[in-house]
């Protein structure tokens, strides 16, 4: 376990030196600063009477502040969910190939580290990175809005972490793909394919209905069944953020998505154990 933690920390150290992540952190900080300095919410008796961003009026309806913020929270949750996943797929695609780079993998394997620990450490490190990004980006955004409006709610803070669960499955696929073929592009493509397949999985019954009944349809249903339910998790996150009840099936989707991720990792571990370096 300690070895996994060391590898994970190594990933975090590596990420902190990358321009992608520095630029991302810088952009988030600028957005936060902009909101802190430029956003003005005039709340009178709980009603949002005026909203100004750098002096420009944004809408002029007078409504209950928490009702207005619900829409903002929903939009922000969707944005954080999908943009966060998209950024994660692109920015984290080369951690796996870097781990397996000639010279580095031989060096790591010469240390008292098992192959599966290397894989798990890399995975955990990238997930920690994802959680940190979610906390800083979305958490900071929601914190500023709550502080400025006086409407305090934990829901959007919690909801946005459903993206991390979806990323768990996506990155497991990406890492596994990198073990099979050491390529950042292929790793990103694998993540992208599962990302979009996970969105389409929400419509698998409708898609199956247009496939001719028989073996083809059954194969499609079997193959699409374990896909992570990206779209459903996004909708659930938005629903939770705005105070709607979580879907009944959310627990199963979460477990299923995590299980899909573990299956991908197990596949990657199987391939890694059989590789000659």
């Amino acid at each position, binding site marked *: 376990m300690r070895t996994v933690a060391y590898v994970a920390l190594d990933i975090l150290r590596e990420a902190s030196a990358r321009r992608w992540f520095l630029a991302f952190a810088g952009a988030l900080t600028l957005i936060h600063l902009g909101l802190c300095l430029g956003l003005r919410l005039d709340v009178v008796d709980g009603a949002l009477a005026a909203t100004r961003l750098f002096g420009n009026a944004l809408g002029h309806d007078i409504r209950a502040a928490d009702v207005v913020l619900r829409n903002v929270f929903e939009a922000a949750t969707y944005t954080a969910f999908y943009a966060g996943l998209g950024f994660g797929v692109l920015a984290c695609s080369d951690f796996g190939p870097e781990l397996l780079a000639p010279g580095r993998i031989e060096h790591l394997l010469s240390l008292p580290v098992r192959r*599966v620990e290397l894989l798990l450490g890399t995975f955990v490190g990238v997930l920690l990175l994802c959680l940190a990004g979610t906390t800083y980006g979305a958490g900071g955004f929601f914190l500023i809005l709550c502080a400025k409006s006086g409407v305090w709610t934990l829901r959007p803070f919690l909801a946005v972490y459903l993206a991390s669960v979806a990323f768990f499955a996506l990155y497991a696929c990406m890492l596994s793909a990198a073990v099979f073929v050491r390529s950042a592009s292929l790793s990103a493509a694998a993540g992208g394919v599962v990302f979009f397949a996970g969105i389409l999985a929400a419509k698998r019954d409708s898609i199956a209905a247009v496939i001719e009944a028989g073996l083809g349809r059954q194969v499609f249903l079997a193959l699409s069944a*374990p896909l992570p339910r990206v779209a459903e998790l996004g909708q659930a996150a938005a629903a939770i953020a705005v105070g709607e009840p979580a*879907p009944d099936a959310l627990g199963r989707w979460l477990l299923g998505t995590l299980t899909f991720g573990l299956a*991908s990792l197990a596949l990657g571990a*199987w391939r890694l154990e059989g590789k000659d370096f």
Partner: protein
Amino acid sequence: MKRTGFLLAALGLLVLAGWLMLEPAAPRLRRAALEFPRYARPHEVERQQRRSTFVLPHPRERASRASDAGAPPDDSAEPAVAVDEPVLDPVHVALAGGEIAFVVETGVLKDSPLGRMLLACLSPENEADLQELEQRTGLRPLEQLERIAVSSDAQGGEPVLILSGDLGGFDPGVLGDDATLEDYGKKTKLAVTSRRALGLWDGRLLVMGTPSGVRGTLARLEGEAPVPPSDLSSEAYGEVYGSISGRALSRLLPSQLAARASEAAQRVVLHVDATDDLLLVADVYGQDEDKLADLGVALGGALALGRLQAVEEKEALLSDLLDESRVTPGAGSFQFEMALPLETIERQLGECARQAR
């Protein structure tokens, strides 16, 4: 061996993931965008054109009718609407000039989901009252009435109630044994007691109220009195519509808003759509922009506070009501919108409403 274990674990986990995901996703139920009654829809424009059957008499004809009826000639009052302008809706003529003028489209309302629910939830006592009314007067409100309107005169006196519909067989004599019956003008049968009066105009409008209020209304309908300007013809949409003066409104509002309302608001025009959810739009007009803006903010704040309190006290009805409420400031006016979902009304009314729906 260990390697095979990983492969078997992967396959097993994939099967488990597939099984866990089998439950189909229930679509996220979201309330459809609400269409507040902000303007007349084509069928309402057509309906209003159909109802515009009242022709303003020529001023000379009016003076002659007034002198026939024994009233002093009214030289100062020229008709607010020129005689060559399109004809008017008699209900709007009856309502013209009042501090309060409201129309309820009962004919449409009773066939709406809300109307069906309300009718289904009438208590046995309500139904007995309705039957007694039918037996005593011969009036079958649910079948004969098209609209119910209420007005009060410019001095804010006693309200006058106006029922519109197919009332040809109605006998004004039901007002009471002590009522005196008379013909008023060319089209009106009038029954008067010392305190109440009831006039049937053209078999279409039943006017009820104090003798002075009813006579004033009938005088306009009979062309004996000028018709003050009324913008109701352009506001005739929704299942309830009408206008109220700021002064009259201040009498209806809570004390903290009443003073502000009387200072800032000159007139409030109201529309309610009850074809599905109950949607209310009120346009508040005033001359003092600052006071109007203050009133808008105060109203928005009061609604937000009320909503927060309702949420905290778990009063679903009130929080639903105030959830979609908003105030939209404009030049010389602001618009106030409020919605009450049909499900909320159904929940409040209970089983009878559910069955009716």
